[in-house]
């Protein structure tokens, strides 16, 4: 009986995973490290991570406002939740920093924790990295070629962002295609050593389009396509009504093909059926962007130094600039360095964890959409919490270290205490 259950369970799991592969397998994700720019607002590039950060801020602000709007001495409902959350944070901090310091540090540390935690967990929501605006890679590649042509400049490196998914036109905003979309990447083999002229790039692009969108087979990519290959590619593109069409350019505009001479001037590419595009997600986990983690790390650094200076005055700087001897001076320099290295470690610990988690989920969703990725989601919930806690607690610990009195001052206090006992002794008979 038990064997039947086990076998049934295994079959159900395998069936479920297989079903996921059939219905939900998306295109291979394009992993891009910098946050994608959604729109421009003056000098500010509004990236998807920035939009997510604003969403997290709005949620925090609205929810806390509603939850603490009518505070009562006898708490009910949401007030209970917020009070226990704040009390938990205060309690944890008091264990480390003591009661007096906690009141000073609390707002900043708690904001670190809440902002990072909510951002990390929001990054696991299903519409993150899934819904976005379409970026037309097919047109993008042609524009790059056209720009190089008008600048009379050869390609010495590959075109950036030259890979995408073959997908239907979604009209600007769309979902990452759940099934059937295949990937295609345009490569020219350009490098500093072997530059590729815009004309040759166009030829290669035409062959690439024919190979990608029709049954046409080229003769390899090692050298520039021959005239026959190019003619075959053009014929294949022309034969299929859904394949991309090359638009003729006029004299002052467009790119001339090398293999076919001046005869073929291409002024644009049109995609009547499927097109080569990417979905640029509107939302992406906030701290998968280095800008945001560096910003937090800088704030953490600035606050620690500020608290240190406020607590100890200029004496705080004596920790770094101590010329009473060679070794103290050296230690001071090390302290100073470590102070700045913290910015980097803060920034890249958070970025690395969150970005890696995001990539892991994206890749696993692509490889095995169902079940296995759920485990990773659970893990990422944990990682998101841990990273928020680590960032907040490390800042707190550094802050406590900064406001503590320095060793030398402690010795001074001991000396004073000694004098006091002496004078007290002299009062006696």
């Amino acid at each position: 009986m038990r064997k039947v259950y086990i076998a049934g369970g295994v079959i159900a799991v395998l069936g479920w995973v297989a079903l996921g592969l059939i219905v939900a397998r998306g295109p291979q994700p394009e992993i891009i490290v910098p946050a994608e720019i959604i729109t421009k607002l003056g000098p500010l590039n509004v990236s998807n991570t920035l939009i997510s950060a604003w969403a997290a801020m709005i949620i925090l602000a609205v929810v806390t406002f509603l939850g603490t709007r009518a505070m009562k001495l006898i708490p009910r409902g949401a007030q209970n939740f917020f009070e226990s959350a704040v009390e938990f944070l205060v309690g944890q901090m008091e264990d480390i920093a003591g009661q007096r310091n906690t009141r000073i540090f609390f707002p900043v540390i708690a904001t670190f924790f809440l902002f990072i935690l909510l951002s990390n967990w929001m990054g696991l929501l299903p519409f993150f990295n899934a819904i976005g605006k379409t970026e037309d890679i097919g047109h993008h590649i042609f524009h790059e070629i056209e720009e190089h042509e008008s600048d009379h400049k050869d390609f010495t490196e590959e075109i950036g962002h030259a890979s995408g998914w073959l997908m239907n036109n979604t009209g600007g905003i769309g979902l990452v295609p759940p099934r059937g979309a295949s990937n295609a990447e345009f490569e020219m083999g350009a490098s500093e050593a072997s530059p590729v002229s815009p004309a040759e790039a166009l030829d290669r692009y035409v062959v690439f389009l024919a190979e990608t969108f029709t049954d046409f087979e080229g003769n390899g990519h090692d050298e520039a396509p021959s005239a026959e290959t190019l003619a075959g590619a053009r014929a294949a593109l022309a034969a299929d009504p859904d394949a991309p069409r090359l638009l003729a350019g006029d004299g002052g505009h467009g790119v001339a093909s090398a293999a076919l001479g001046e005869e073929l001037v291409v002024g644009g590419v049109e995609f009547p059926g499927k097109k080569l595009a990417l979905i640029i997600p509107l939302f992406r986990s906030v701290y998968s962007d280095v800008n945001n983690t560096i910003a937090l790390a800088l704030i953490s650094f600035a606050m620690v130094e500020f608290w240190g200076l406020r607590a100890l005055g200029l004496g705080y700087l004596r920790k770094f600039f101590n010329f009473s001897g060679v070794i103290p001076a050296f230690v001071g320099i090390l302290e100073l360095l470590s102070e700045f290295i913290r910015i980097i470690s803060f920034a890249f610990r958070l970025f690395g964890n969150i970005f890696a988690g995001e990539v892991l989920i994206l890749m696993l969703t692509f490889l095995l959409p169902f079940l296995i990725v759920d485990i990773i989601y659970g893990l990422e919930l944990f990682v998101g919490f841990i990273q928020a806690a680590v960032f907040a607690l490390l800042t707190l610990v550094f802050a406590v270290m900064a406001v503590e009195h320095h060793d030398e001052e402690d010795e001074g206090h001991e000396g004073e205490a000694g004098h006091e006992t002496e004078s007290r002794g002299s009062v006696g008979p």
Partner: protein
Amino acid sequence: MGEAFTALGINLPQLIAQVANFVVLLLILRFTLYKPVLRMLDARRARIAEGLGAAEEARAEASDAQARIQAQLDEARGQGQEIVANAQQVAARLQEEARAQAERDREAAADRSRQEIQLERDRAIADLRAEFAEITVTAAERVIRQSLDGEAHQRIIEETLAESELGERS
């Protein structure tokens, strides 16, 4: 360095934007979360401390009152005992007095009876003597048939009597 910055997508405006975001969020949360909640927690802590203090005070007061009542009870009991002791003393004295009175009364009554008896006896003796004297006189008259004056007679009788046992006794 510049290439690394581009590859990671580091750009100053977004960095500044994120710093600004954090500051804004900090100010908002200070207003919507930290201040009201911490104030409420402090207020509640103060209230509870106050309540506990009041309870402590009440308990102290109660035990105080208990002690006072106990003291009053003890005092009352002492007073009661004293009263009872006094009463017993008085009762004993009264009893003593009553017994002494009774003794005295009895003594007096006995004395009186004795006196009365004495008186009665004296009277009886006197009567008896008078009668005996008369009888004797009569008897002597008869015996001697000699008239003697009364005075001589009486003297003789008296002498006789004095010599007799009756006279000695009185």
